[in-house]
């Protein structure tokens, strides 16, 4: 069964979607069979490609839509939305 679903999230970590969060997002997305895409305004990119994610330059406050299409779409969206909402487990004291 294939399902298509969308979730809207806001990037809240102060550093935005930089290299490490993008890496975490891709690692999480690739655990799922569903096709994952990330949409910012009129830009749509592959959620399983770190180079693509980084082209969004999503600063803190950016609204993103996560779209999943596939058998595990809901589980994928749950995991990815949680990751964004929990600020990618970023520790502000870490010297980035």
């Amino acid at each position: 069964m294939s399902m298509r679903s969308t979730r809207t999230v806001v990037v809240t970590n102060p550093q935005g979607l930089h290299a490490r969060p993008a890496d975490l997002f891709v690692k999480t997305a690739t655990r799922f069979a569903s096709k994952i895409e990330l949409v910012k305004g009129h830009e749509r990119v592959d959620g399983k490609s770190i180079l693509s994610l980084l082209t969004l330059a999503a600063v803190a406050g950016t609204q993103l839509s996560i779209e999943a299409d596939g058998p595990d779409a809901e589980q994928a969206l749950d995991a990815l939305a949680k990751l964004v909402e929990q600020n990618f487990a970023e520790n502000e004291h870490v010297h980035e």
Partner: protein
Amino acid sequence: MKFADFVSREAIRAELTADDKEGVIREMVQALLAAKKIPQGEYDSIVKAIMKREELGSTGIGRGVAVPHTKHPSIDRLVGTVAISSEGVDFDSLDGERVHLFFLLISPPDRPGDHLRALENVSRQLRDETFCKFLKQAKNKEDIVQLLEEADNNQFVS
């Protein structure tokens, strides 16, 4: 943001001699120091900060590219440089491939947006295979400067 906005031409290195991660980072930070883009006396501190960032997860983002970076309090505007290793370096890349192209970035602690826009530019250009291929084949600083200028003028990305 364009390459010209943050890449120090004087610090570009067309042929890295280092063959490991720390060596590459040292060579590139040294190049920025020689180009007077970072303060004298901050060399060790900056190298250490970049290495510490690598411990959190490699910045080898695939396709033979790495973007080692850090924030540093001694810097008041984003600086960066480009280097190439024809041999390639084991950088613990996300895709396991050896790294040939390095974009090193140092940003002021309070400017996360600039850092993101520099990453955006680097990743956008590197998605273009022609740009990647030409850059890896660059033989000298002039070749690299020319390729970066062409990329800035949107000759690779439509």
